[in-house]
């Protein structure tokens, strides 16, 4: 029974495929796999915008949207209708073709990454041999779309925003890839399915997730920091810092194209979160062995929503970094830590299992982490100050 529930989507697809002739089966299979992703994740986007506005509202002691529908649940629909009916303004001097292509390319590129994400047991669009590489390769297309948007608008603000965005994305792609390498090293494969399978076992009730190792937790933290920067989320949302350069590269967009940018940004966030889940949080596997009866896709989306909640929480709390600080964080902290973490993962691999391995590997990452942090703090010379009063 639980088996059937777990595989219900796979079985449904098989059953549906039985009705089409054998020659059309590959293409039908592709359609049947792609369409749910094309529908499901935009739906998740709608839910996330609602969640974000509600969550941010509560963080800020407000109600958040509560007028459209019960608990404001129809707010995303209202937003969609609004953005669809808005006038689409293109600046007179803009490069019309590129201006039009940029949001389309961005949204399309954001969708591509989902092809290798295993969202459930046997539920992956393409089990690619070089899945993780594919993921990062299509991720780099987003930069091009951002540049197209910023350049074609012929606005100084959008150009400045695009330059910031590209500089930030390129800088954080390196730590993002380096942070994910530890999981690849341990799994011995670039295939996302193989990485998840490697984490699917249990010792007692505890899962074999990579995040429950010293290098795993550091890798996960670094990956999430880099992913936050990569998807332009607060506190790394400088490219669209609305208080500085207003909206960055998509300042000249309105209506549906603006909505596409919004969609692309959120899809990118889901994709990188999904990759973090795949690499470190055991993908679709349950957190405890006695919870495996819950279908695998439920676990995947539960983890995804938990990460999104974390994003929202951080967004509601932290101010934005500055460009040079962002860069120095990437190059002076995240990059050395990621390299060190790779070494740590290697040592973990070759040391015999036991308490000693734990101690050694924890020390290797924890001590430099603290030292680097202290060094950064001392270098920057910032501290909580005490103040004097006039006599």
């Amino acid at each position, binding site marked *: 029974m639980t088996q059937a529930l777990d595989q219900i989507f796979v079985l449904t697809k098989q059953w549906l495929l039985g009705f089409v002739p054998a020659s059309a089966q590959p293409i039908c299979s592709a359609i049947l796999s792609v369409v749910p992703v094309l529908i499901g994740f935009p739906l998740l986007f709608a839910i996330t915008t609602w969640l974000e506005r509600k969550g941010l509202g509560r963080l800020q002691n407000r109600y958040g949207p509560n007028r459209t529908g019960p608990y404001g649940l129809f707010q995303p629909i209202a937003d969609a209708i609004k953005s669809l009916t808005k006038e689409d303004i293109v600046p007179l001097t803009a490069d019309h073709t590129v201006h039009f292509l940029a949001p389309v390319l961005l949204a399309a590129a954001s969708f591509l990454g989902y092809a290798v994400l295993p969202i459930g047991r046997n539920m992956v669009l393409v089990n690619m041999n070089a899945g993780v590489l594919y993921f*990062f390769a299509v*991720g780099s297309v987003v930069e091009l779309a951002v540049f197209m948007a910023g350049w074609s608008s012929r606005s100084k603000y959008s150009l400045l925003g695009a330059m910031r965005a590209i500089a930030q994305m*390129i800088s954080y792609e390196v730590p993002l890839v380096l942070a994910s390498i530890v999981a690849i090293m341990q799994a011995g494969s670039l295939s996302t399915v193989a990485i998840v399978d490697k984490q699917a076992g249990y010792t007692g009730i505890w899962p074999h997730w990579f995040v429950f190792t010293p290098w795993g937790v550091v890798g996960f933290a670094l990956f999430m920091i880099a992913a936050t920067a990569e998807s332009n989320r607060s506190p790394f949302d400088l490219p669209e810092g609305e208080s500085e350069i207003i909206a960055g590269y998509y300042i000249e967009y309105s209506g549906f194209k603006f909505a596409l940018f919004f969609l692309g940004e959120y899809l990118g966030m889901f994709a990188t979160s999904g990759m973090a889940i795949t690499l470190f949080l055991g993908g679709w596997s349950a957190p405890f062995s006695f919870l495996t009866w819950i279908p695998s896709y439920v676990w995947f989306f539960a983890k995804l929503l938990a990460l999104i909640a974390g994003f929202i929480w951080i967004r509601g709390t932290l101010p934005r970094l500055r460009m040079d600080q962002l860069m120095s964080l990437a190059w002076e902290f995240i990059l050395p830590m990621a390299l060190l973490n790779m070494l740590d993962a290697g040592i973990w691999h070759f040391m015999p299992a036991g308490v000693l391995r734990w101690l050694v590997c924890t020390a290797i990452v924890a001590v430099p982490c603290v030292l680097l942090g202290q060094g950064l703090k001392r270098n920057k010379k910032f501290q909580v100050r005490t103040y004097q009063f006039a006599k």
Partner: protein
Amino acid sequence: MTVTFLILAVITVAGTAAAMGLRNAVHCVLALTVGFAGVAAIYLQLDAQFVGLTQIMVYVGAVAILAVFAIMMTHTPLPAKPPTYSSFWLLGSVVAAAVFAVLAWAICSSAASTQGLPPEPEVSVQQIGDALMHQFVLPLEIMGLLLTAALIGAVVIAMDRREETK
């Protein structure tokens, strides 16, 4: 020669031709990325998955962005439009056409052209990694050295030496 190959070839050639022919430099680079992506797709079609993805990552994600950055940085705000093509464009085109003619003649008359498609080789990333670490370890090390040198060299060359000249 399959339909897929034809489509990809047309996209690639159109992209690269546009990249070399368009007036606006940024348009050229954007068109070029289409060409690069087309080449990557052809690699995938040829079962070279790893190379294809690397091609996208390096060319679309890095080289194109780098070129675009360079164009933005060397942008002169002068309104006067300089001519797009060099003064000896005719000579250049003739040379290029001649090269293509020679190459095409060579290919068409080559004996290698008679081969059929061998069965799909099983190339996993693990194999590539193994090969890089064993058989090709010396080239790999040299490549690492080269990339490091290029990184440092590029930074040194591009660095603004305004402070020193003062």
